[in-house]
């Protein structure tokens, strides 16, 4: 009995051991290092590109990207998800990460984004601008107010003095994009960068009041990082000239 228990214990330890190797301690093989970057859903395309460029410039580094609603990402980090860098779509979500001491140093703004009215290709409900979103016959999908794009949408509504009654409040900006691009909803409010990234499936309409709801995107290295030097290098890379160029091409404004 005892011998068998020992065997079970040994197996458990072995399994636990796998976990730590996977976690990426760089003692065994300093060449292969994985940098985990958590980024807001609206950064999907730009960070995929930046990740590839960073890998190309740094031998033996592979960048693993996790995308989601900013508040979702912070919740995952609070629950102990291992990551090296965090980039959120607004300051509120980053502040909650800072308050939980998840962040190493001060977050730095690296881009800005504004909202645009989004309709499916062909604009079936004939939406001409922000005020049309308040029309009762227009099915509007927004982000939930706890998500940065939802908070921005709320500020925009207040600035324009309209009251939009969405048919759904989605968890992330990409969910809104999906519901509008598929034609399920007539219109939505998403970032101008999402409209550019979605191509022909959607049409974006500029909003004059957009300046009242500018989202500033902060980035920071995380305190729990196994590769603080690499994390800092990635942050500098995003803030640097190359990052600036990729972000500008996708429609992001300067910080």
């Amino acid at each position, binding site marked *: 009995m005892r011998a068998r228990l020992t065997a079970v214990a040994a197996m458990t330890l072995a399994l636990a051991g796998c976990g730590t190797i996977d976690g990426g301690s760089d003692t065994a093989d300093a060449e292969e290092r994985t940098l985990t970057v958590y980024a807001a859903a609206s950064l999907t395309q730009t960070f995929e590109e930046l990740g590839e460029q960073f890998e190309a410039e740094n031998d033996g580094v592979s960048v693993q990207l996790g995308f989601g609603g900013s*508040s979702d990402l912070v919740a995952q980090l609070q629950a102990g998800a291992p990551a090296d860098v965090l980039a959120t779509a607004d300051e509120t979500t980053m502040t909650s990460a800072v308050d939980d001491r998840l962040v190493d140093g001060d977050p730095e703004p690296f881009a800005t984004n504004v909202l645009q009215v989004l309709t499916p290709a062909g604009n079936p409900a004939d939406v001409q601008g922000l005020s049309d979103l308040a029309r009762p016959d227009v099915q509007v999908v927004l982000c939930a107010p*706890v998500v940065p794009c939802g908070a921005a949408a709320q500020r925009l509504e207040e600035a324009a003095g309209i009251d939009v009654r969405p048919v*759904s409040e989605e968890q992330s900006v990409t969910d809104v994009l999906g519901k509008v691009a598929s034609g399920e909803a007539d219109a939505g409010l998403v970032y101008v960068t999402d409209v550019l990234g979605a191509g022909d499936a959607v049409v974006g309409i500029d909003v004059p009041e957009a300046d009242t709801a500018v989202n500033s995107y902060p980035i920071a290295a995380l305190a729990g990082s196994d590769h603080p030097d690499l994390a800092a290098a990635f942050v500098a890379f995003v803030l640097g000239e190359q990052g600036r160029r990729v972000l500008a091409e996708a429609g992001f404004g300067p910080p």
Partner: protein
Amino acid sequence: MRDTVGTFPRWLLVPAATSALFIAVPLLAIVLRVDWSQFGALVTSPSSQAALWLSLRTASATTVLCVLLGVPLALVLARARFRGQSLLRSLVLLPMVLPPVVGGIALLYTFGRRGLLGESLEVLGLQIAFSTTAVVLAQTFVALPFLVLSLEGTLRTAGQRYERVAATLGATPTTVLRRVTLPLVLPGLVSGAILSFARALGEFGATITFAGSLQGTTRTLPLEIYLQRETDPDAAVALSLLLVVVAVVVILAVRGNDARQAL
């Protein structure tokens, strides 16, 4: 009942205990994590109440729909013999093994505005996307197999002896169904209905994909938990415990029902 240990290798007790703990410990973790001083306030907040009420309403509607749709199907599967029967049975069970999000996408391309039936429905003035109806459809899609499977099993176990006797005594098939078959399998039907209610109550993936998320209309309890998790973990935990309690009640109800059936 006296505890007995039958014939099996004693060392199996160790992995058996491990697997029991594997289920018990996470549930215990939820209970330990609950902020009891705030519990009442958290589960009675307006958004929680709206979500709970919506969940109970939609899950009840789903259960009714499952009974209406599931009983005929279970009867046909249990009593008829036809080509493609096993194929039909596999098809009915598919939503049970399918990831719910896939079910949501399938429903979207069926009942969505640009879906297979969506345009015809829209002509009739029916819009399903983003409505409470969408929630019920999503729940029914995933819950129906539970009722069909459970009832078909009961029908097979019950056998057809009494039905044949009733028929030889001159009862029409409809009378046999109403007076003999259904009363005979009622416990199985009740168990199946409770199980589909429980499955409907827990539905998440198909709902968020197909119905969206809006307080009071489509944001059921699991969707509310998912949203709260990001901003108010305490509320998410409190609501999770609420669903655990409901699940325990459901299991007790099914087991009580099965025990009566066994008498």
